């Protein structure tokens, strides 16, 4: 690749170019014999290209000038045969190199994809989908062009250039020097073009990105645009970007329009020189007419390589930049990976312990600070806290989505870092805050964590997540394709599919992060009912804002700035009068605020009817007999008059519950 250096040497060859190139060639290594044969073929093909003009010279000088017309047929045949051989070889050469480059690209794509799958959550917190996409598509494609066409063209051009030059000097060195007079200008033009046009195209692309962003925002935010009648404002924004895009395009085209024909002109200038000087030489008898004609033909062959050099420099620079981006991605180390000595985790019991666990995303701002928590198999832990208090981070440590920065997390007594990721995660069911479903059928989506699940299992999970009935209303039922290219689901429906997906894993540990936040209260309540039995046999961690979800847990922990500040059962925490009881009352307040007849702010929880008296909730073991306690008719402020519909609101489940008991059952079973 000496030539690559010579060609790229013109403008922006960064110090790392050789390193990148060497690494790039590594990917060619498995196909070295193909690359080698292709190079050999190029050599032969370029050499054969030199034959035709030589034959023309021979025909003119030996045949036509001397009246030796019998030479014509062999000459024509040789031209034809050379072309046949050359065509066959060109085919072989083109195919070989394209096969190789496509193979390399294929390997590279798989490599990248596999690597992406290894990278940890921390990486995806920062990476932009579009950015990653463009590395695997645009950058890889650029490399394909470079490896497939660029390199071949470069080598073939170098061979041709050197070959033509040798032949020309052999024919007539003076004429060669004269006709070469324009070459420095040509090189200069190529160099200038590579230097100026490329940044211009880059700017065009940049502006296209801006334009696309504006457009995307407009389209996705169309409801707001229309709601505020801001269409004109939006048109103005888009017009500004669009006009700039046009301007840059024109500028780029103009630059190009200057250089490309300029090169044509230089070529023509060379021809003019040949006609002039060569013509004079022929008339003086110092040059044969055939040589002059051959010269002219060779010259066209010579000019192409130089002009292609401009293209190549451009392509090479883009390819280098693309490789750099690709390698950068490949070199990103996964923060969370299997340790060399990792063992598979045996079937879980479900015991989870946080042992002085600390965590920070950036190593500076602590997110979790010295968390100590022990959870027995089958327990339900609710986690409460304000936005940013570390709730999600806490549960993300269990399946090792992130690694602790201090302390450890133990499952069944084993540090999660000592077991294989796969065996760990397979036994943990997760419903994350943002529900992601794939463009596939509902069946495939629900069975995502367990592709081999039977239809019965899928339906059971769907029923438990209260999505089965909805699915049955769809024309294609479980075979309905959802996601971007299919039926759109509402936020609540998506969450329920995600819940079904997690349930189907039949995991010993369940992590539910705001899993019902987009579901309306009624459905949430129904899901919880279904959960009740499912949660019994599992260790589960629930993050929720609605206290109705939280209050039935075996244990509630309240996080504040990464620390556990309160811990206990609902009753215990209410009794302690700490943060939990404050939050509790705040939420009650929200619901009862401004009771009938009192349409003002400044809600005062205490002076309402007994229904939502904060004290009511603390009443220990309230309503143990299962009859709706007064507290449950909350909010009406009109005890006795409210719609006590028996079970439907008496669900509070406090009945029969032993505060502080290790394993609770049927939290959500209203009727008992």
């Amino acid at each position: 690749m000496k030539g690559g250096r010579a060609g790229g040497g013109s403008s922006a060859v960064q110090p790392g170019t050789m390193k990148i190139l060497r690494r790039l060639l590594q990917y060619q290594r498995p196909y070295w014999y193909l690359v080698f044969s292709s190079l050999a073929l190029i050599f032969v093909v370029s050499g054969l290209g030199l034959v035709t003009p030589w034959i023309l010279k021979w025909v003119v000088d030996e045949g036509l000038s001397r009246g030796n017309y019998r030479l014509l047929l062999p000459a024509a045949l040789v031209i034809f045969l050379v072309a046949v051989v050359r065509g066959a070889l060109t085919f072989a050469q083109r195919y070989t190199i394209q096969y190789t480059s496509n193979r390399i690209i294929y390997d590279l794509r798989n490599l990248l994809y596999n690597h992406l799958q290894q990278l940890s959550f921390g990486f995806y917190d920062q990476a932009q989908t579009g950015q990653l996409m463009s590395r695997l598509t645009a950058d890889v494609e650029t490399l394909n062009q470079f490896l497939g066409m660029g390199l071949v063209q470069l080598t073939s051009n170098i061979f041709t250039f050197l070959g033509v030059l040798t032949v020309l000097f052999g024919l007539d060195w003076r004429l060669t020097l004269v006709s070469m007079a324009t070459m420095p200008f040509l090189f200069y033009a190529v160099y200038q073009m590579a230097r100026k046009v490329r940044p211009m195209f880059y700017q065009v692309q940049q502006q296209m990105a801006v334009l696309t962003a504006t457009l995307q925002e407009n389209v996705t935010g169309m409801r707001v645009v229309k709601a505020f009648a801001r269409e004109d404002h939006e048109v103005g924004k888009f017009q500004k970007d669009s006009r700039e895009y046009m301007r840059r395009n024109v500028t780029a085209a103009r630059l190009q329009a200057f250089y490309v024909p300029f090169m044509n002109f230089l070529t023509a200038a060379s021809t003019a020189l040949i006609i002039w000087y060569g013509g004079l030489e022929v008339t003086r008898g110092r040059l044969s007419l055939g040589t002059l004609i051959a010269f002219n033909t060779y010259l066209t062959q010579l000019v192409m390589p130089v002009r292609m050099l401009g293209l190549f420099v451009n392509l090479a620079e883009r390819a280098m930049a693309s490789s750099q981006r690709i390698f950068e991605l490949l070199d990103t180390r996964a923060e969370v990976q299997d340790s060399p000595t990792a063992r598979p985790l045996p079937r879980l019991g479900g015991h989870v312990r946080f042992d002085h666990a600390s965590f920070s995303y950036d190593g500076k701002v602590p997110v979790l600070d010295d968390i100590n928590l022990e959870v027995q198999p089958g327990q339900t832990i609710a986690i409460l806290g304000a936005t940013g208090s570390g709730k999600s981070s806490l549960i993300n440590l269990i399946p090792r989505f992130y690694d602790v920065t201090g302390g450890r997390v133990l499952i069944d007594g084993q540090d999660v870092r000592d077991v294989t990721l796969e065996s760990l995660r397979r036994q943990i069911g997760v419903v994350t805050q943002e529900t992601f479903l794939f463009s596939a059928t509902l069946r495939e989506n629900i069975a995502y964590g367990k592709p081999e699940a039977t239809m019965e299992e899928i339906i059971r999970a769907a029923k438990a997540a209260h999505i089965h009935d909805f699915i049955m209303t769809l024309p294609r039922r479980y075979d309905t394709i959802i996601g971007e290219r299919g039926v759109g689901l509402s936020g609540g429906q998506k969450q329920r599919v995600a819940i079904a997906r997690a349930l189907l894993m039949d995991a010993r540990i369940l992590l539910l992060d705001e899993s019902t936040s987009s579901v309306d209260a009624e459905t949430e309540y129904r899901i919880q009912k279904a959960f009740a039995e499912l949660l019994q046999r599992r260790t589960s961690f629930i993050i929720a804002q609605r206290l109705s979800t939280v209050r039935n847990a075996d244990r509630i922990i309240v996080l504040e700035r990464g620390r556990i500040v309160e811990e206990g059962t609902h009753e215990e925490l209410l009794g302690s009068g700490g943060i939990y009881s404050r939050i509790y009352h705040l939420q009650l307040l929200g619901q009862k605020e401004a009771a009938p007849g009192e349409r003002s702010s400044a809600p005062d929880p205490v002076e309402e009817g007994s229904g939502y008296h904060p004290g009511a909730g603390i009443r220990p073991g309230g309503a143990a007999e299962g009859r709706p306690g007064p507290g449950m008719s909350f909010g009406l402020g009109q005890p006795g008059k409210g719609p006590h519909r028996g079970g439907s609101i008496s669900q509070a489940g406090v009945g029969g519950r032993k505060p502080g008991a290790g394993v609770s059952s049927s939290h959500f079973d209203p009727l008992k």
Partner: protein
Amino acid sequence: MWAGGGGFGGGPGHGFDRADGAGLSRINRKVLLRLWEHIWPFRFYFLLGVILMFIVSLSGLAGPYLLKVAIDQYITRGDLAGVTRIALIYLGLFLLNWLATYSQTYIISWTGQSVIFSIRMGLFQHLQRLGFTFYDRLEAGRIMSRVTNDVDALNQLVSSGLVSLVNDFLTIFGIIIIMIKMDYHLALVSFTTIPLIIALVAFFQIRMTRAFHRVRRRIADVNATLQESISGMKTIQAFSREEVNLQRFDSTNQENLQANLQVATLTSVFFPMVELIGAIGTSLVVWYGGWQIAGHQVSLGTLVAFLGYVTRFFMPIRDLSQVYNLFLSATVSTERIFEFLDEEPDVKESPGAEELLPLSREIRFEEVTFGYDPSLPVLKGVNLQARAGETVALVGPTGAGKTSIINLLGRFYDPQDGRITVDGTDIRAVTLLSLRRQMGVVLQDTFIFSGTIKENIRYGRLEATDEEVVAAAQAVGAHDFILRFPEGYDTEVNERGSKLSVGQRQLLAFARALIANPRILILDEATSSVDAYTELLIQQALERLLAGRTAFVIAHRLSTIRNAARIYVIEDGRVVESGRHDELLARDGRYAELYQKQFAGAVATH
């Protein structure tokens, strides 16, 4: 030639849209005619461009002819001055070629870009006019793809395709004419290769187009798989699906490889074949032309010129097949663009629409029937009434038609039957602008524009001063958290609003609505729960927002419902109950039932 690069691999830019290449439609004359309408205003520039193209092509073709003249008339006769003269003419001609090419490219690209600009703007403007029905039907990605990818495909055609198309044609015909003029017989002999090349192009054209399309579809598959994997990576890892996914990706990737190899095979055969046919032409000219020289029917110069023209003849033919591809994809794109432009906005201003006067008395729904699909009515004879300054709460199960009611009020859709009046005036009789300017709409999922927090609030009223923005933020209780950002109101937020919590985004939306100071407020309360403090903030903000305004609220909060002057219980597209909270509870009907289910479940707890 630079802009058009790419070629292999189908160009990544097209990848994301899958619906494209399915049917390879023919070049549609009607579509081209409509395209012409956009070109028409620039016809003089185009004409100028075409004239320049003639100069470019002709001056480019003069080369071999001048060589012939030089050989036959000067070199072989020893005319030194003539040789010099012809060399100078040659030089001058190509100087002209350079200048003409430069101005031609500049003019054409300026004109082409202007046309593209006009199409793009037309499309965008039209999109602003299209109603919600349109946006319900199509995903953002698809809409975008038309404004970017499709317009760009057209751009490629206009900026490089058309020029090379015209140039190629001029070159081919120019060469044919010159050859015939120079020597009729030799020309005919050279032309015997033309059927060969036509057969070759015809044979490969179909196969290559098909293969290119296959590559495009395959790369689109790869991209789609990738995109989904990347955005769902956390889920993939949470469910340990890495291996299954790698296998699937590998098979998609493999198919892409196969498609590309097919293209590689075809191009590897096609291009050498073109060169081979060129060589046949050359050998024919050498052999036959040589014999003609022997018979003194042809001069040596003519032979040399012929050899030059024969080589030049095959380049544009090779290019033409590429331009043809460009042309095809541009036609498909143009069709897709016009499809959008033909989309009629379903909510249109009536011709004599008047300004709506500020609401002073009441808003009424009179027997309103509406369905997104007219055969499936969502609202069936709805009657509602809101007096100026009152808050009306809409409650009912999901899918009952609450959202449709507020959508109709904003005239985002029109009812099929019945009418909606503001102070007795049908909202279809007034201008959309005057109607929507009176309204503030806060939707469930808050949309945050990328820009600063200040700009986002100001979106409600573009001319609001900084003080007003701050005042609005203070009023809804957003001021404190905004100031907690290091850059305060100038904090950059993005579309996903990732710096902001759900509650904070909602407060911003409230501030945005407040600054617009609408007479009529339409609000869809979010169901997403937020932490208790934020919840309290939101409730207080809501109260500020609702005070003194006429409001329609899809209510999920008990406090909002209780404060409403009237509650409408919507079920299955009908109003089943209405009245104040306590009245309805006392009635012990649907509302009472709903009330228990919804709110008892949520907080009912001691």
